C-alpha cells in the first residue's frame, strides 16, 4: 500500500481538491453531537469528533429510498434517484469503514443489491484515525484498523497526516493534489508506529470475542434476556444508529387512483414488534425479551456462523443512544460472568440451562446493568 504524508496546514486545500471528485460531506457539530453533512465551508468540518449520531451507512442504505415506480402500461420502472450522486465522505473512522466492509459482504452475497453497490462505487471514502472515548471497544472487535474499503486514510502524526492510499481513485486524488503530498521519511514511520501503539493502550473498554458464539450458545436461557426485555423499550434506536444493522422493510406506496405508485425500502429494526410478524398474523418474537435476545444473537453469534466474525464493530453508538442504558459490553461481561460463576458453582449450569430460575445469590453476584454508561 502506498504511503504519503500531507501537511496539516494544507488539509483545507486538499479538501477543495477532492471537491472535484464529489460534494464533500464530513462530520459537523450539531447540538453538541456530530453528524455527517454536506459542507458549505471547510470550517464546518470537525475531524476531531468522537462518533456521529448516524453512521455513514445512511449514504449507502438510505433510511428511505424508492426502488421502483410502477405505472399503468409501463410496469415496474427502476428508480435511480440519487444513485449517481458523487459524494466524498471526509473523515470516516476505521470502525465505520470496517462496518461498510461488513455491509459489502451482505449486499454482494447471494442477492447482490445494485442500489447499495452503485452507491458504494460512487462514494469516495477518506478515513481518519481517532482517539477512543469511554464507549469505544472497536479494538476488541478487531475493527480499530482497516486495510481496505477506503480511498485514502489519514493518521495524525503531529504536523502531518500519515496517509494510506487504498484505491486507484485515492491515487487519482493524490495526483490531482499536485505536490500537496510529500514522501514519508523513516522518522514519520516511527512516529506513526509510536502513535499506533499509544492508541492501542488507550482503550478503556475491552470485550473478549474469541469464544463469544459458544458463550451465547451456553447462555441461551439466561435470565439476563428477560431482565433486558423488561428494560428495553423496543424503540429501535440501537438498530438505527448501528453501522451494520441492515434490516429493511419494503412497502408499496400506492397513489390516488391505484394505477401508479412506488415500491419503497425503509430501515427496519428487529426490536420493533412488527419485525417478526407474518402476513398470516403469526408473530415469532412477541416479547421484548425475545426481540432483544434475537438482536444480540444475530450480531454476536449468527453473523459469526455466516461471515466468520461478529457484525458488531465496537463503535459504541448503541450504548450511547439507548434511553435505558443497555450496554453491549456489560451484557457480554455479565454473560461471561455467569459462566464463570457457573464454573465455580457447577450445579447451577444444569439448572439454568433447563430454564429454571437462578438463585438470588447468583443474581446478586452480577453487576447492575444500569450502573454502566
Amino acid at each position: 500500500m502506498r504511503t504519503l504524508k500531507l501537511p496539516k496546514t494544507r488539509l483545507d486545500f486538499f479538501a477543495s481538491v477532492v471537491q472535484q471528485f464529489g460534494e464533500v460531506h464530513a462530520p459537523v457539530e450539531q447540538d453538541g453531537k456530530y453528524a455527517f453533512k454536506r459542507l458549505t465551508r471547510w470550517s464546518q468540518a470537525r475531524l476531531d469528533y468522537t462518533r456521529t449520531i448516524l453512521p455513514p451507512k445512511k449514504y449507502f442504505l438510505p433510511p428511505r429510498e424508492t426502488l421502483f415506480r410502477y405505472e399503468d402500461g409501463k410496469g415496474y420502472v427502476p428508480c435511480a434517484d440519487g444513485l449517481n450522486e458523487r459524494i466524498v465522505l471526509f473523515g470516516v473512522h476505521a470502525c465505520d469503514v470496517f462496518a461498510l466492509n461488513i455491509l459489502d459482504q451482505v449486499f454482494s452475497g447471494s442477492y447482490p443489491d445494485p442500489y447499495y453497490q452503485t452507491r458504494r462505487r460512487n462514494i469516495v471514502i477518506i478515513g481518519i484515525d481517532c482517539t477512543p472515548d469511554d464507549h469505544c471497544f472497536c479494538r476488541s472487535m478487531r475493527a480499530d484498523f482497516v486495510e481496505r474499503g477506503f480511498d485514502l486514510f489519514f493518521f495524525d502524526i503531529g504536523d502531518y497526516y500519515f496517509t494510506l492510499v487504498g484505491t486507484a481513485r485515492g491515487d487519482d486524488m493524490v495526483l490531482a493534489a499536485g505536490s500537496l503530498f510529500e514522501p514519508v521519511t523513516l522518522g514519520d514511520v516511527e512516529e506513526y508506529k509510536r502513535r499506533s501503539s499509544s492508541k492501542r493502550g488507550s482503550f478503556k473498554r475491552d470485550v473478549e470475542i474469541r469464544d463469544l458464539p459458544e458463550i451465547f450458545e451456553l447462555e441461551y436461557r439466561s435470565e439476563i434476556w428477560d431482565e433486558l426485555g423488561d428494560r428495553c423499550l423496543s424503540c429501535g434506536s440501537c438498530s438505527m444508529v448501528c453501522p451494520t444493522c441492515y434490516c429493511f422493510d419494503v412497502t408499496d406506496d400506492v397513489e390516488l387512483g391505484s394505477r401508479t405508485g412506488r415500491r419503497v425500502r425503509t430501515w427496519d429494526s428487529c426490536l420493533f414488534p412488527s419485525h417478526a410478524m407474518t402476513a398470516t398474523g403469526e408473530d415469532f418474537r412477541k416479547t421484548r425479551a425475545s426481540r432483544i435476545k434475537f438482536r444480540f444473537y444475530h450480531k454476536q453469534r449468527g453473523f459469526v456462523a455466516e461471515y466468520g466474525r461478529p457484525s458488531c464493530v465496537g463503535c459504541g453508538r448503541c450504548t450511547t443512544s439507548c434511553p435505558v442504558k443497555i450496554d453491549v459490553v456489560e451484557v457480554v461481561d455479565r454473560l461471561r460472568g455467569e459462566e464463570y460463576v457457573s464454573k465455580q458453582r457447577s450445579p447451577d449450569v444444569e439448572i439454568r440451562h433447563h430454564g429454571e430460575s437462578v438463585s438470588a445469590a447468583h443474581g446478586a453476584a452480577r453487576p447492575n446493568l444500569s450502573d454502566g454508561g
Partner: protein
Amino acid sequence: MIGVEKRILIVDDDSDFLESLSCFLEANHFLVLKAHDGAQALKLAKIEHPDLILMDVMMGERTEGLFTVQEIRRDPELQDIPIFVLSALYSQVPEFEVSPDRGWLAHDEFLSKPVDMSLLLAKIHQRIGVAR
C-alpha cells in the same frame, strides 16, 4: 434602443480590489454587484441572478470561494451562471491546482491576481458580450 445592462457580481473580501475592479467595470458600462464573502454572494446571486460572477478564493476561509462555487453549481437556478475565478491562490500555493472542468468546482476562467484588466475585459466580452 438601449439594451439591458449586463450585471456582474464581484465577490472579494479585499475592499480595495473590490472598489477598483468595480470602477473599471462600471466605466465599461457594466452594472456591478458587490459581495464581501461567500454567503453574501449566494444571497445576492439568488436575488439578482447576474450575468457573470467574478469569484475570489481565499476570503474569510482559504477555500471559501471554492465552496461558494460548489453552492452556486448545485443550485438549479444559479448553476448556469458563468464564473470567473480571480485569485492569488496559485501564486501563494503553487502546488495547488483546480481543473476548470472538474465536478463541483467547474468554472469558466481562472485568472491569477494581480489581474490583467484588459485580459479580463476581453474575456468578459467574449463570454457575455459587451455591456449594452
